[in-house]
């Protein structure tokens, strides 16, 4: 499985070669976007349900003229306003993407810097250290390219016809629930990010560690493929309902964490 090498920011921004994604052909803009499907949800984990505290995960999806933006975030449980931090992370990414999307030739690292600044505004008046949250996002540009970035634990996973791809293999977490996030760092070197062309057919998943840590690493493709097959024939409302049911009936014994999962897939043929 291909893993994106972390790109450490310097004045010479490096972009990943798209060659490893297989089919690099791009459909006409409208047709590609029409065949993309999205679904996402967050559920509160047993630990927070027992304590009657709010879910500290969040996710958002934005659709714009330049493309779609997917983001998930996990507030650090030990912080008093982790739920606020997670929601702010998602809103910050959407705000930043709307600005960056107007200037898509600008370095993608500008997108990350904007996210940090806007996040600090959105959590005001709470201190940063009280709102620490991870952040994983993907921007699917209408012109057939994608920019994905990750700070902290969780998983960004892309499956194409002949390869699979993730931004981080758990390198940022020594143990479960011990990770980096917004509010703990402002260094670009703590982010993993990649820019590539999107093939005509793909499965994509963004999820927090409550999901990611329990998926068998060598079964990720099967996990995402299974969900796509189950969800694709359904209406949008039914997809959300099924996904919530799967997360609320999570199979790993003793599971504790909040869980957030966002899926995106694109069919190769409009008739599928």
């Amino acid at each position, binding site marked *: 499985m291909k893993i994106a090498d972390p790109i450490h920011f310097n004045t010479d921004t490096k972009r990943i070669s798209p060659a490893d994604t297989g089919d690099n052909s791009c459909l006409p803009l409208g047709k590609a976007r029409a065949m993309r499907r999205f679904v996402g949800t967050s559920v509160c984990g047993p*630990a*927070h349900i*027992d*304590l009657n505290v709010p879910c500290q995960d969040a996710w958002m999806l934005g659709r714009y003229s330049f493309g779609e933006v997917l983001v998930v975030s996990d507030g650090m*449980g*030990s912080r008093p306003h982790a739920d606020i931090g997670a929601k702010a992370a998602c809103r910050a990414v959407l705000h930043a993407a709307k600005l960056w999307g107007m200037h898509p030739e600008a370095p993608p690292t500008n997108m990350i810097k904007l996210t940090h600044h806007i996040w600090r505004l959105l959590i005001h008046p709470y201190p940063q250290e009280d709102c620490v949250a991870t952040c994983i996002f993907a921007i699917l540009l209408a012109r057939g390219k994608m920019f994905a970035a990750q700070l902290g*634990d969780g998983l960004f996973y892309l499956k194409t016809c002949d390869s699979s791809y993730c931004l981080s293999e*758990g390198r940022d*977490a*020594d*143990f*479960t*629930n*011990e990770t980096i996030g917004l509010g703990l760092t402002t260094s670009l070197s703590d982010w993993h990010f990649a820019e590539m062309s999107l093939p005509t057919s793909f499965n994509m998943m963004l999820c927090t560690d409550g999901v990611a*840590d*329990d*998926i*068998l690493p060598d*079964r*990720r493709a*099967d*996990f995402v493929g*299974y969900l796509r097959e189950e969800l694709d024939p359904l209406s949008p409302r039914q997809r959300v309902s099924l996904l919530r049911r*799967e997360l609320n009936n*999570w*199979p*790993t*014994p*003793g*599971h*504790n964490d909040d869980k957030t999962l966002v899926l995106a897939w694109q069919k190769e043929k409009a008739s599928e």
Partner: protein
Amino acid sequence: MATLKEFTHTEPRPLPVIILADVSGSMSTESKIGALNQAIRDMITSFVNEEDLRAQIQVAVITFGGAVRIHLELQPAKIIQWGDMSADGGTPMGEALATATALVEDKGKIPSRAYRPTLVLVSDGQPTDDWKTGLDKLLASERAKKSDRFAMAIGADADEAMLVQFASDPNIGVFHANDAAQIRQFFRFITMSVATRTKSKDPNQTPNIPFNDNPDSIEI
């Protein structure tokens, strides 16, 4: 028909407990090794009998007496077949610490989905090797320094100054055991601390359990 169960872990997230046990020659006196064996055996039995856990307790035992050995490979408590340790030789504590560090750093044996390990160091004497290098390496390790670390000094000859540096909570410090009953008392405390973590909303948080060093007390 497939379900998500096919693609996900079927065991709870691990919570490793790693015992570093001094089995040098001096431990063969005054029933110390016998008490230590019984205390660890009882701890494992307690872990097996715990219900409603949010983590899978795994135990490893590294002995140092003459040589350093992995007496018990890291494994779930429920499958452990305990064999008693025997005491002989010097006290290569530095090498034992290095072995423990390597184990904690091994993501094949302790994956990122695991909760922070508990490390327990038990000794009745002075190290006979370069313990400082081993301890420095452990405390510099990103993963090992995040572990909960407890230390017990058995008898009056233990190197308490060294054990204090190992322990992770200066408010708790080093436990002292002068007889078999106190050795068992300490391990009941470890058992309760670990069991409490596995039942809490966040097993990574260290519970605040006061240690009652009265061996006649039925309370921990």
